[in-house]
């Protein structure tokens, strides 16, 4: 039994099917990347885990099904989510953004805040600043910090490098790697930036038009012509 398992997962927006029979698994303490072009279904996959889309099939975390649970219960069962383009509360301070993440956490709020400040010292320095006035990199840190406020066992990060400069991408990659190493956190990221994904993850899954086309370890796929074809179109 794997830590996070997907069994024939399909997702729907009304009558349109966004994901088709996706099956894969993630081991505890692993970083896995789902890569694919725009519209491949990456964000839908993460939204499905969070119970934000209509799905069929099964998703299990540590053997327990997440299907049918509301987002609140999914977070309680140990899933943290940092959505695409940060999805912050723009006219709130950094601290208040983090506190929204802590809403369901009854204990350990101060301890979690300290851990987040250790990971992102800049957030402590600017805790009173409105996030609408922050840079893209800082907002991504707030987004990740908010997801960490409930001490998740698995962290879902949707396109963490979108719109960020290469230097900031490296910074985010370092932080995610530290979270994985120091907090023993299982991480699932979605990415369009295949280089970033390969640098960070141990395994890759390639989504194309809602279907899982290719999967394997980074070493297996690094020079795989199918990846070049599926992902870069040549």
């Amino acid at each position, binding site marked *: 039994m794997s830590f996070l398992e997907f069994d024939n997962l399909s997702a729907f927006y009304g009558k349109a099917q966004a994901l088709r029979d996706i099956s894969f698994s993630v081991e505890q303490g692993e970083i896995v990347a789902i890569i694919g072009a725009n519209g491949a279904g990456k964000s839908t996959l993460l939204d499905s885990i969070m119970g*934000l889309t209509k799905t069929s099939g099964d998703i299990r975390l540590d053997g327990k099904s997440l299907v049918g649970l509301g987002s*609140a219960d999914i977070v309680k069962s140990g899933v943290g989510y940092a959505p695409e383009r940060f*999805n*912050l*509360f723009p006219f*709130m301070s950094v601290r208040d953004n983090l506190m*929204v993440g802590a809403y*369901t956490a009854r204990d350990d709020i101060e301890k979690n805040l300290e851990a987040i400040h250790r990971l992102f010292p800049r957030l402590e320095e600017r805790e009173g600043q409105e996030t609408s006035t922050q840079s893209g990199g800082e907002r991504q840190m707030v987004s990740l910090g908010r*997801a960490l406020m409930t001490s998740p066992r698995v962290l879902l990060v949707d396109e963490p490098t979108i719109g960020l400069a290469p230097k900031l991408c490296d910074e985010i990659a370092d932080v995610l790697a530290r979270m994985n190493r120091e907090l023993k956190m299982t991480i699932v990221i979605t990415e369009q930036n295949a280089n970033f994904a390969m640098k960070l993850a141990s395994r890759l899954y390639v989504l194309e038009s809602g279907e899982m086309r290719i999967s394997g370890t980074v070493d297996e796929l690094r020079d795989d012509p199918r990846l070049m074809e599926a992902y870069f179109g040549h």
Partner: protein
Amino acid sequence: MNIRWYHLALWAAFIIGMIYLPQLVSKGTLRTIIFANYLAIFAISWDVLSGRTGYVSFGHPFLIGLGAYTTAILTKRFGVPVEISIPAAVLVTMVGGSLLFLPALRVRGSYFALVTLAFMELMYQLVQVIRPDLTGGTRGMSGIQTLTRGAVNGYYLSFGLMASLGFAMWLLMKTRLGTALSAIGMNEEAVRGSGLNTTKLKLAAFMLSAFVAGLGGAFYVHYLGSIAPRALFDINFVFTIIVAAILGGASTIIGPIFGAFFLTFLLEYLRPYLPGAERYFIYGGIALLLYMYEPKGLHHVLQMALSAIKGKSRS
């Protein structure tokens, strides 16, 4: 809770100043302040729901009317003492608040606003048609028991109610609940994605808003001693509440109080010069300018002025 000492000091100064106010101003001014106090209560109620969660209600008189009519009918038609009729009115209004909440499960934005407007219209029609022997029909009701005599007592009661409701809501909005309600107004999807139950949170906002509206409506009708459906379920009344909240600074609690006082006094002091509806052009113009250049409202203007003074005194 993110409360600084000077927040509490400002509240204390405001309350102490208002306690001594009757000794400094005329009875006419006190009566104007009484209306400002009640408008502030209604604007606070609107702000807790719409200013925070972004679910803009055009139907707040529905809630205020439920509170007002319930206590008016209970006291006048059935001889129920106000000690019972007012809590009953608040309960009925909270039930009404849960009815108003139902559409929020399915619609939002302008659609939700229109649905709430329909609630107000429905209530207006119902009080005229259903049991006019109880509601007074189109004429409304008069001779309703008043709780105080004279402007000074009326002032203290209305101010006590407004200040205690305002302070309680302000404290509550400083908690994680308040932060989460504001977050819904900015990005409901992200709130859900953070694992919060937005349905429960929105219900809490509707209940709180209904509680304040019901209490305000009940006390207001016992101040006026009468109720007139045409004035209560009137779109101008809705806009006055909304403009007071936004003009003062929505999502702040203090802002709607500022806005209510500013608006009431502006309209009152313009009356000798512009006795007709022209006054509303002036207040509309001021509101328009403020929305365009300072959408965070008077509360923010005051905050900036205080920061500038602090900055000068430091240098």
